[in-house]
C-alpha cells in the first residue's frame, strides 16, 4: 500500500543522466578495459587504454602515457631523460617515475602504500602525525624522521612548506588549488570525481596511479587480490538464505545523511546477497535525504552502518537514538545491529579486500564463523559506564 514516491520528471531525467554517465564512464568492470589494442612494448600484455570511472590511462607509446584525472584534465607522463614532445603543455607534463609526492587524502596515501612506494616518495601530508600514529606507523615514522612534512589542513595548505618539500606531484581532491600549484610549477592530479566512486573504480584506482611510479605489476597484484576477495564473497554468500537489509549513513540533530546507492558500499551490499535500502539514491558522496524516507527504510532494515565514530558520539544504539529522537524507532536501533567505524578504517583502504570481507562477514555472520572485527565495532544497546565517564 505504501511505496517510495513516483519520481518526478526531473528526477527521472537526473537518474537517466547519471546512468548514462555510468555507462560511458565504464563503471562496469567488463567495460573498464575496452582497449582496442594492447601495448606490448614492455614485453608483457597491457591494455593501451584503461577507463577507471572518471579516470583514464592511455598508453600512446613507450615514452608517452596520457592520463585523465578526476577533473577531466589530461596529464602527460614522460619518462625521466626522454625528450618532452613539442605538443605538450609543460604544466601538464609529469616525469616518471615520480620520486616525491604530497598527498591530501587518506585514500591517496593508502594507494601509495598499495604500490609499495610510500616510504620512498611521500614528502607531504595534510593530517598531523598523531592521527597517523594510530594506524599508519609508516607515515608517522616518515614524519618523525623528517622525510614527510605536515603541510597544514587540506583546506588551508601551507604552500610555502609545500614548495619547500619540492614534490614532483601533488595528489589532491581540491581543484581550487590548481591555479596556485600551476604557478608553483608543481604538477597535480585531482583524485576526486564529480561522481561517486563505484566499486570497480575503487578497486582499480591504484591502476590509475601506477604509471606515475612504474608500478603496474603491483597495481595488478593489488587488483587481483581485491578481485579474489570479491569472488570469495560472492561464492560464500551465493547460497545465503535470507537477504539482510542494510542502511549506511549518519544521523544529526534534525537531519540525516546516507551513502548513495551508486557508491561502492551500495554495490558491495548488493554483491554480498543483501539489499541496500538507499539503492535509488544517487549522489557524489554521503548525501542528505528526508527524515521520513530514512525512517521508512529503517522500519525494515536489519543493519545500520554509521559514519560516526565512537569519539563523535556513536558509543551505543541509545546514544545514536538520543541524537535524533525522530528516528529512534528504526529497526536496527531497536532490535537490529549497528556498526561504527574504528579509527583505522579510514586509513586502511590499502586493505580494501579485508574491509570488503569484514562488511560481508557483518552482513552474513553465519557464513563467517569466528570472524573477529578489525575495522568496525558493533555498538551495544546502551552506553557502558566507561563511555559515560569518558564523556563527563
Amino acid at each position: 500500500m505504501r511505496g517510495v514516491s513516483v519520481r518526478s520528471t526531473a528526477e527521472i531525467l537526473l537518474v537517466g543522466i547519471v546512468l548514462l554517465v555510468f555507462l560511458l564512464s565504464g563503471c562496469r568492470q567488463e567495460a573498464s578495459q575496452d582497449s582496442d589494442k594492447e601495448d606490448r612494448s614492455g614485453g608483457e600484455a597491457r591494455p593501451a587504454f584503461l577507463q577507471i570511472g572518471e579516470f583514464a590511462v592511455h598508453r600512446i607509446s613507450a615514452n608517452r602515457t596520457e592520463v585523465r584525472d578526476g577533473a577531466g584534465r589530461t596529464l602527460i607522463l614522460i619518462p625521466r631523460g626522454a625528450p618532452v614532445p613539442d605538443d605538450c603543455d609543460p604544466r601538464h607534463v609529469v616525469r616518471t617515475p615520480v620520486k616525491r609526492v604530497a598527498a591530501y587524502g587518506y585514500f591517496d596515501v593508502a594507494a601509495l602504500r598499495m604500490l609499495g612506494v610510500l616510504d620512498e616518495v611521500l614528502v607531504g601530508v595534510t593530517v598531523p602525525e598523531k592521527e597517523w600514529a594510530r594506524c599508519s606507523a609508516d607515515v608517522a615514522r616518515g614524519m618523525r624522521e623528517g622525510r614527510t612534512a605536515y603541510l597544514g589542513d587540506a583546506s588551508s595548505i601551507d604552500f610555502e612548506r609545500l614548495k619547500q618539500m619540492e614534490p614532483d606531484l601533488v595528489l589532491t581532491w581540491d581543484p581550487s588549488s590548481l591555479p596556485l600549484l600551476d604557478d608553483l610549477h608543481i604538477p597535480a592530479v585531482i583524485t576526486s570525481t564529480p561522481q561517486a566512486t563505484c566499486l570497480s573504480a575503487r578497486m582499480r584506482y591504484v591502476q590509475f596511479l601506477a604509471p606515475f611510479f612504474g608500478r603496474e605489476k603491483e597495481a595488478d597484484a593489488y587488483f587481483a587480490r581485491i578481485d579474489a576477495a570479491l569472488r570469495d564473497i560472492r561464492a560464500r554468500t551465493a547460497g545465503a538464505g535470507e537477504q539482510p537489509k542494510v542502511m549506511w549513513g549518519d544521523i544529526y540533530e534534525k537531519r540525516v545523511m546516507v551513502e548513495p546507492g551508486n557508491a561502492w558500499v551500495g554495490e558491495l551490499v548488493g554483491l554480498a546477497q543483501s539489499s541496500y535500502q538507499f539503492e535509488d539514491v544517487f549522489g557524489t558522496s554521503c548525501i542528505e535525504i528526508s527524515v521520513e524516507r530514512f525512517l521508512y527504510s529503517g522500519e525494515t532494515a536489519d543493519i545500520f552502518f554509521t559514519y560516526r565514530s565512537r569519539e563523535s558520539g556513536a558509543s551505543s544504539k541509545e546514544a545514536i537514538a538520543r541524537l535524533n529522537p525522530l528516528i529512534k524507532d528504526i529497526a536496527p536501533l531497536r532490535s537490529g545491529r549497528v556498526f561504527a567505524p574504528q579509527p583505522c578504517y579510514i586509513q586502511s583502504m590499502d586493505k580494501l579486500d579485508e574491509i570488503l570481507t569484514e562488511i560481508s562477514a557483518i552482513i552474513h555472520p553465519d557464513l563467517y564463523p569466528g570472524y573477529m572485527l578489525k575495522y568496525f565495532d558493533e555498538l551495544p544497546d546502551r552506553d557502558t559506564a566507561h563511555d559515560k565517564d569518558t564523556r563527563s
Partner: protein
Amino acid sequence: MSSTADLSIAPMQGTFLSRRPLLVFCLLICATVLLLLLNVAIGSVQYSFSEILAVLRAPFDTSTASAIIWNIRIPRAIAAVFGGAYLAASGLLLQIYFRNPIVGPYILGISSGATLMVSFVMLTTVSAGLTMLSPYLNTLAAFIGAYVVMLIVLAVANRVGGGATLLIVGLMMGYLCGAVSAILTALAEKEKIKGFVLWQLGSFSGFKWNEITLLLLGGGLIIVLLYCLSKPLNAFLLGEEYAASLGVNIRRFRLLILLCSCALAGMITSMAGPVAFIGMAVPHMARLSFGTSDNRILIPGACLMGAVVTSLCDLIARSVMAPVELPLSAITAFFGAPIVIFLLLKRRVKL
C-alpha cells in the same frame, strides 16, 4: 543611507481594507492552507489520500505512517509557515527601522551569532559531556548565540542614535562571529564539519512539537504586538519627528522594533538554521501585491506571503529530487534574488 520613504498618506488614511488588499488576503490565505495540506500530503514516502486521512484520525497510533505524518510532516509544514511568516515580519520591521529596502533580518548579525555558538557545539569538544541536552543542543546553542548578539545590538542601539552606526555595528558583529566560526571550522575534524555545513544550509526538517509550541506562543505574541504597533510604525515610516509629534516615544519605539525583529529572526534561526532571502525579498513582494505601505495591511500580509513562499520553497526542496533534500536557502535564493534584482532595476523598491 538613502531614505526611500515617499509614502503617500492616502492609502493609510483611506479605507483600511479596500478591494485589492482583501482579494490578495483571500488568495494568500487560500494558498497558505493549500500549501500546508500539500506539504502534509506529499513526501518521499507515498501515501494515498485515504491512508493519510486514516492516520490523521488516529494521532496516537504507533505505526511508521503515523510517525511520518504526525511527527515529521505536520510539524515541518507548520514550521515552514511560521518560519516564513516570522522572517518576513522581521525583515519588514528592519526595512522600516533603517528605511532601507535591501536589509534583511540577518543584517544585525543574528545568524552569525547563532552560527558561532553552533560551531562551538558541533566543531569542538566543549559539548562532549552535555549529552543530557541532546537532541536540543544545537538549537539551544543557536538560540543563545542569536539572542546574545541581539542583546549587544540592543545595548548599542540604546547608546547611539543613528541607524547607520547600528547597521555598521551589526555588520561588524557578523564579521566577528564569522571569523571565529571560520577559525573553528579550519581547526575542526572533517567528519564534524559535514554536520555543521548541513546546519548552515538551513532546513525545516526535524522540527519537534515542543518547538512548534514555542513558535506559536512566543512568535505569535510578538506578531500580535507588532500588529498593535502598526499605526506608530506608519508614523515612524514618515519620519521620527512626525512620529514624535504624534506622541511616539522614539527611543523606546526603536528598541522595541529591534527587539521584536531580532527575537523573531533568532527564534527561527535557532531552530531551522539560517534561511536566506525570505526576510529581504518577501516584504517587497507583499508591498507589490497589496499596493500599499500601510503596516496594518503589510504586517499580516508579509506574514502570509512569507508563509506561502517558504512553504512552497520547502516543498520544492524536499520533492524535486526526493528522497534527496536540496538546501532550502538555495531554493529561497532562486525566488528571492531575481525579485530583488527586478525591483532594483525597475526602481520600484520603496518603503
